[in-house]
């Protein structure tokens, strides 16, 4: 069962990477980068079960956290075109827009 799931995840990774190559819009790429991270998390979890070391799940959880930070950074970049804004500046830009 784990072998089948791993195959499915690998196929899904290929498809997601194709979307990252092809685009066409930026948001396709944001989405593909994010879901590629999710696929890696799944793959590491499955690898743990395949090799009888389920403690790999902890590593997979940490990867999920890192992936989340990356996506937040990308979205913040799109929204404000700047990575170093304080919360006050964000609030003032929200008021303008």
């Amino acid at each position, binding site marked *: 069962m784990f072998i089948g799931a791993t195959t499915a995840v690998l196929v899904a990774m290929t498809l997601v990477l194709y979307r990252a190559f092809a685009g066409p819009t930026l948001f396709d790429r944001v989405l593909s980068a994010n879901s590629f991270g999710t696929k890696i998390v799944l793959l590491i979890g499955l690898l743990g079960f395949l090799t009888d070391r389920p403690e790999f799940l902890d590593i997979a959880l940490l990867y999920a956290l890192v992936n989340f930070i990356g996506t937040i950074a*990308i979205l913040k970049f*799109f929204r404000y075109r700047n990575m170093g804004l304080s919360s006050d500046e964000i609030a003032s830009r929200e008021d303008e827009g």
Partner: protein
Amino acid sequence: MTTSPDMVIIIIDLVLLTLLCLTAFAIMLVRHLFAVVALTGAFSLLSAGLLVTLDAVDVAFTEAAVGAGISTVLMLGTLALTKRREATKPKLSPIGLMIIFLTGATLIYATPDMPKFGAADSPGLMHIVPDYIEGSKNDIAVPNIVTAILASYRGYDTLGEVAVIFTAGMGVIILLGRRREDEYGYSEDNAAFPLHPEGSDNTTGKDKS
């Protein structure tokens, strides 16, 4: 089905390596810099996955945290200060291509001479590692051998690394950190070379690839 987990691991390695090569070529060919940032994130995650299959879980996690996490954020911060497209089309230089192929061929030629994966008698493990394994418990009194090596046997080495990373962090903060409009009178509005000229900040995805 007679497929053993080892077979599956080999297949996973092959697929991940193929995807890694494809991603590398895509990074080379794509001219839209935001796509390149997204692809380098995917590249880091792929190599982290490969390192996990090689049982180097700690290295894999460093790769994922630094490559996919911090680097993505830093590259986006850089993109906020520059343009989103590569300005010049790079030319294919035959000499460079030849050097790369020669280096690659040399590395592949040298690969069979390497010790087997995970072999206990590989030269790297024969020199001083037995002393570390024997001595760390009594010399350092730290139960974890890796911690003992990094923090004590190679303490100065680690201190040097900390200095390097600190310097790099300072450089990044100076280059990308938020600009203060403070007692020095510097602000985006009166700067001689404004970083964000009027009309250049389009928040919507107007420039599609």
